[in-house]
């Protein structure tokens, strides 16, 4: 196997060390074998979660592994502590990605304030499981977005086009 492909199986060690140093005391040192071991652990973690997420996908006869599948897999595999902040993170990410003017205009036209409710296109993909009001501290899995109204949301540019393919 070529060296390049081997390298690609792990996170870059500089990134890994930088993250470790942010959590360690300033005087701490990290041995070389520990650095390599962490690299291996991270790849194993990704593969472990991905396999579980993909299994769920296949059971539901979907082709695309989504962020929700990943969060679900983490809860199932004992990483509940991760799923909560990641759900918040994903929500914030979608808010930041939902910037195109067409989305903003469409939301305004529908009398929806983006700062108060979730953008309607989230509901149209059927991923309401992890949606919740950011102001609430609770974390729950119930779908609270059933009332999405008729017609749904259609935009000229859809940044989640690859997610839509789930419905096909």
């Amino acid at each position, binding site marked *: 196997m070529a060296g390049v492909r081997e390298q690609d199986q792990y996170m870059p060690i500089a990134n*890994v060390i930088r993250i470790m140093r942010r959590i360690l005391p300033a005087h701490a040192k990290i*041995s070389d074998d520990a650095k390599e*071991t962490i690299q291996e652990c991270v790849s194993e973690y990704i593969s472990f979660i991905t396999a579980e997420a993909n299994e769920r996908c296949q059971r539901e006869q979907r082709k695309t592994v989504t962020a929700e599948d990943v969060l679900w897999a983490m809860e199932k595999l004992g990483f509940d502590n991760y799923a909560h902040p990641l759900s918040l993170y994903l929500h914030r990410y979608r808010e930041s990605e939902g910037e195109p003017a067409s989305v903003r205009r469409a939301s305004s036209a529908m009398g929806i304030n983006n700062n108060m409710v979730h953008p309607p296109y989230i509901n149209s993909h059927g991923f309401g499981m992890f949606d919740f009001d950011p102001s609430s501290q609770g974390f729950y899995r119930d779908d609270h977005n059933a009332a999405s109204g008729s017609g749904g949301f259609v935009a000229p540019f859809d940044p989640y086009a690859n997610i839509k393919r789930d419905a096909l």
Partner: protein
Amino acid sequence: MDQNKQGEAAEGGNIGHPAHGKNQEEQSNPMIAPTNPPKKKSLEEQLNDFWAAQREEAKMTTNFKTHSLPLSRIKKIIKTDKDVKMISAETPVVFAKACEMFIKELTIRAWANTEARKGKILSQRDLVSAISQTASFDFLDDIMPKDAGLPRTSIASTENAYLNMPPQQNVAGLPYDAPTMAFPNLNHHAPN
């Protein structure tokens, strides 16, 4: 185990360090011990604080353009699983954040072990201990070396590692993960 010295395999793609020399691990210093306990939070307290901080941090994130880990590399690792057909654009983004938390949690737990044995260098054995003590990390057991006191093969710089290693080889077996983590084939036949 009594061994405190780790084999220092040469590291491919070494990043520059201001502190050039690598210190050998030191034996426990009894003069330090009495002052440690009063200042240290318990591991559980550290982790509770850590998770609370992660939730706050997730709420306040505004910059999604840069990630602490490269998305392209995450995609490649995800794709090592041949069963995975397609992934949404958000999936590597979520994994980047998840892996950052994973590295931090593992580091916190390992460092607690370093401190417990009065060491100053976070070593592989500290990781092995942390992993064995944490139920959610059971999936890592099979890729851990059986004896953490021995040096292990460097994936990033196989040839250099081989030249610097003692004659004895210690390659961890991979009974379950062979499809996703292929170790390079060294001159000696690796145990399966």
